[in-house]
C-alpha cells in the first residue's frame, strides 16, 4: 500500500502538456485487438467508486464508469452521459437531458432512474460515499421522464457542475447495484470488470456496446507491482507493455532507451509543507515565514524529485484561469530566517520542532531529511518522525496532532474544491487549524459569485494571501510518467486532463 496517491482528483482537465517524445506515427490507423499488460504501481482496494478515496483504485475504475458530465482539455465542463445540461438563471436548478444510447455492462439501458439512484447514493454519507458534500445544497432530484433529470438546489453552489465531473461524484451506475459495486463494479464505461485476483491483478475486457464506440484493445490486464524497480525490470524484459510511475531517478535513463517510450506530463500533483497553526510558535507569521526562507525549493525539488517537477507558489492547476502567475516562491535566505526567529523570540536552539512524514511517499522522507539540514543550520532543533500511512492519517489528518508535516494532493482543477476545502476554517482538508476571517470571507464570496472572471480573480487573491501570510509553504508540481514499449500506441490520449487518471479507450497495440 505504499506510495498510494490519494484524492483522485477528478475529472479533469486539460492542459496536460505531454513532454515526452510522442511517436510521430499518430496518423496510422489504429489496430483492434490484443490485451495490454499494465504494471500498475498500486494495490487496488474497495472497488466501489462512490466509496473509494484512493486515486490508485480510481485509476482503474475510470475505465469502468462514466460520469454524467466531464471536462475537455481546457477544463471546461462538457456533456458526457448527459447529452446536454442547463442551469437556470438563479443558479438553483440544473436540468440534464440524458443520452438514449447508453448501455450498462449488465445489459440494461441507462434511464433517469439510474441517475437519480446514483446521485442519491453518492449524496448519502451513510453509504460511506466520499463525495457526499458535493450534493450538500441539493434539495430534490426529479425525473419527469426517462431521459430527463432535474436537480434543484436550496442555495447557489457555483462549483456544483464542475464537482460532478470530479472524483467519481457524478458516476452513474445501474439502479440497485450499490451492494455489489465493491466487489464487482458495473458501469457504462469502455471496459467491463472481469475479475480481480486480490493483490495480483485486475482484468478488464472491452465493452462492445460502449456508447462512444468500442475500444481498440480487447482487454487490459493491470498487474499490481508496488516495487518501483521491479516494475521497471518488467518493462525492460518485455513482460509488461507499460508501467505508470517510473522511479524518479530513472526517467532520463528510460528516455534514452530506443526500445521504450516515456510519456511524461505536468502536473501529476503538488506538494506543500504544513504548520500546525495551533502550535504556539507557528501562530506567529514571522516564524512561518522564517521556515519558508530556510527552504531552497529548487534544491529540494532536485534532491527529492530528481528534477521531475517544477517549483511554484500557486497550487492552482497551471493552465487554469484561477492560477496566479504573479507570485513566486521565496528564495532561501538563512540569515533573514534567523533574524525573523530572533524577532519572534527564538534564539538559536530555542525552537524545537517535530516533523511528521509518511513513509507512503518515500520522496517525502527524503525531503524531510534534506530540510532538516537547513532547519538545523538556521538554529532550529528539529527531529523527524516517520509514520505509516494509517498513522499519518489518524495523527495528522484527524487528530491534528503534529507541529510540521508535508503532504501532496492531486491538482484539483476546480478552485472551490481546492481552496475552500484546504484553507477555509471549516474546510474538509483543513487539518492545520487555519482560521483566518479575511480568507474565509474571500472563499465564501467566491462560492456565490456566478460571474466566472470575477470568481477566478478572487481565487488569485486567495493564492497571494496564502503566500503573504505563509499559511503553508507551497513547494512544487510533480510530473507524472508512463513508460511503455514502442508497440503501445495512442498514448497521447491516455492521460485524463486531470493528470491523475488513465483511460485506455483509444489506446491500441501495434503488434
Amino acid at each position, binding site marked *: 500500500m505504499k506510495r498510494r496517491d490519494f484524492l483522485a482528483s477528478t475529472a479533469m482537465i486539460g492542459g496536460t502538456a505531454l513532454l515526452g517524445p510522442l511517436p510521430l506515427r499518430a496518423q496510422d490507423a489504429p489496430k483492434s485487438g490484443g490485451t495490454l499488460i499494465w504494471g500498475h504501481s498500486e494495490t487496488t482496494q474497495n472497488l466501489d467508486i462512490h466509496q473509494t478515496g484512493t486515486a490508485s483504485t480510481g485509476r482503474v475504475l475510470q475505465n469502468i464508469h462514466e460520469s454524467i458530465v466531464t471536462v475537455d482539455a481546457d477544463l471546461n465542463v462538457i456533456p458526457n452521459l448527459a447529452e446536454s445540461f442547463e442551469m437556470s438563471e438563479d443558479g438553483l436548478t440544473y436540468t440534464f437531458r440524458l443520452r438514449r444510447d447508453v448501455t450498462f455492462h449488465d445489459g440494461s439501458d441507462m434511464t433517469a432512474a439510474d441517475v437519480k439512484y446514483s446521485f442519491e447514493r453518492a449524496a448519502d454519507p451513510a453509504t460511506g460515499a466520499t463525495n457526499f458534500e458535493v450534493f450538500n445544497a441539493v434539495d430534490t432530484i426529479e425525473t419527469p421522464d426517462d431521459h430527463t433529470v432535474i436537480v434543484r438546489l436550496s442555495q447557489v453552489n457555483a462549483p456544483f457542475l464542475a464537482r460532478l465531473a470530479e472524483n467519481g461524484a457524478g458516476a452513474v451506475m445501474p439502479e440497485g447495484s450499490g451492494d455489489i459495486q465493491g466487489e464487482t463494479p458495473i458501469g457504462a464505461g469502455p471496459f467491463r470488470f472481469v475479475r480481480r485476483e486480490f493483490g495480483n491483478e485486475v482484468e478488464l475486457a472491452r465493452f462492445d456496446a460502449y456508447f462512444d464506440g468500442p475500444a481498440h484493445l480487447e482487454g487490459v490486464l493491470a498487474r499490481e507491482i508496488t*516495487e*518501483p*524497480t521491479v516494475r521497471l*525490470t518488467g518493462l525492460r524484459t518485455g513482460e509488461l507493455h507499460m508501467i505508470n510511475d517510473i*522511479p524518479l*531517478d*530513472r526517467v532520463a535513463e528510460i528516455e534514452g532507451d530506443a526500445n521504450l517510450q516515456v510519456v511524461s506530463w505536468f502536473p501529476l500533483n503538488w506538494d506543500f509543507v504544513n504548520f500546525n497553526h495551533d502550535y504556539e510558535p507557528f501562530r506567529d507569521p514571522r516564524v512561518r515565514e522564517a521556515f519558508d526562507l530556510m527552504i531552497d525549493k529548487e*534544491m529540494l525539488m*532536485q*534532491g527529492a524529485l530528481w528534477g521531475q517537477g517544477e517549483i511554484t507558489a500557486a497550487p492552482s492547476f497551471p493552465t487554469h484561469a484561477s492560477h496566479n502567475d504573479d507570485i513566486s516562491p521565496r528564495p532561501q535566505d538563512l540569515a533573514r530566517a534567523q533574524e525573523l526567529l530572533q524577532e519572534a523570540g527564538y534564539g538559536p536552539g530555542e525552537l524545537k520542532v517535530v516533523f511528521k512524514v509518511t*513513509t507512503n511517499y*518515500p520522496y517525502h*522522507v*527524503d525531503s*524531510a*531529511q*534534506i530540510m*532538516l*539540514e537547513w532547519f538545523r543550520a538556521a538554529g532550529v532543533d528539529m*527531529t*523527524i*518522525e*516517520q509514520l*505509516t500511512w494509517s*498513522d499519518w492519517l489518524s495523527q495528522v489528518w484527524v487528530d491534528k496532532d503534529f507541529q510540521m508535516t508535508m503532504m501532496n494532493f492531486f491538482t484539483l482543477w476546480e478552485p472551490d474544491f481546492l481552496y475552500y476545502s484546504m484553507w477555509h476554517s471549516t474546510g474538509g482538508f483543513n487539518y492545520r487549524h487555519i482560521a483566518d476571517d479575511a480568507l474565509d470571507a474571500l472563499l465564501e464570496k467566491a462560492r456565490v459569485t456566478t460571474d466566472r472572471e470575477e470568481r477566478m480573480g478572487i481565487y488569485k487573491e486567495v493564492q497571494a494571501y496564502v503566500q503573504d501570510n505563509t499559511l503553508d509553504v507551497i513547494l512544487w508540481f510533480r510530473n507524472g510518467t508512463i513508460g511503455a514499449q514502442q508497440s503501445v500506441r495512442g498514448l497521447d490520449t491516455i492521460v485524463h486532463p486531470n493528470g491523475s487518471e488513465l483511460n485506455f479507450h483509444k489506446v491500441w497495440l501495434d503488434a
Partner: protein
Amino acid sequence: MTTRGIVGGALVALMLALAILAPLLVPDTWATEMDMLARLSPPSLAHPLGTDQLGRDLMWRVMLGARTSILIAGAAVLMSLVIGLPLGVVSGYFGGWIDNVLMRIVDATLAFPALLLALTISAVLGPNLRNTIIAIGVAFTPYLARIIRGEALRVARMPYIEGARAAGTTDTMIILRHVLPNIMAPIIVQATISLAFAILAEAGLSFLGLGTQPPDSSWGLMIQASRDYLDRAPWTALVPGAAVALTVLGLNMFGDVLRDVLDPRHAMPAKPA
C-alpha cells in the same frame, strides 16, 4: 579457544568498539551531511564505501549505525531476560499448576512467529527506538522463558536441592544460592545467540518501516533505503548488509565456542523463530 572462537570474539569486540567509540570520535553530522553532486556515487577516495541517494557518506553512516543496531539488540535481549528469567525459574522450580498455567501462556505466545509478534507490537505502540526494543524484547521472552524453565526443572530435581529443602532452607534462598548459579551457563550461551537474532530482527523491522526511524541511522534502515536503488547502486545495500553479517557471524561463532566451554551438554541452541 579455537580459531573460530578467536575470530568470533574479535568480530564482536570490533563491533562493540565501533558502537561505543564511533559516536565519541565521529560527529553525528558527518553521517547526515548531504552532497547533492555525489548521490549514489560508488566507492571512491572521497567516500571509501560510496554514498546513498542523498549523497551521504556510507562509511560514516554504517559506523554510527552500529550504535543503534547494537543498542537495540542488547537492550531487547536484556529485557527478555529480565522478564523471562523469573518466569522460567518460578515455573521450572515450583512446577505444578503454576508451571502449567505459565507454560500454556508461553506456548500460546510461541505459536506466533517472533517477527510477526514484534511487528504487531511495533504497530500497536508506534515505531520508534524505544518501542522497537520493547517489541523485540517481548517477542523473544517466551523462547528464553522456555529454556530457562527447562534448566530450572533439571536443577530442581538434583539431590542437593532435596537436601537443602530438608535442611529447612527457604525456596528463595535455594533459588538464589543453588538454582541460579547452576543455570547461568546455558543462559549466557542462549543470550549470546539471541543477541544475533535480535540484530536480525531489528533489521527486519526497520526494513518494513516499523523499526528505527530517521534521522537515527541503523543498518536495517540503510538496507530499506537502498531498496529503490539496488540495481544502480548495489553498494548501498552491500555495505550495511556486510555490517549485519559480520556482527551476527561473530556472535554466532562466539556463542558456539562459549557453549562448548560453558555448556557442553547441549548440542544446539534454541532459535527464536
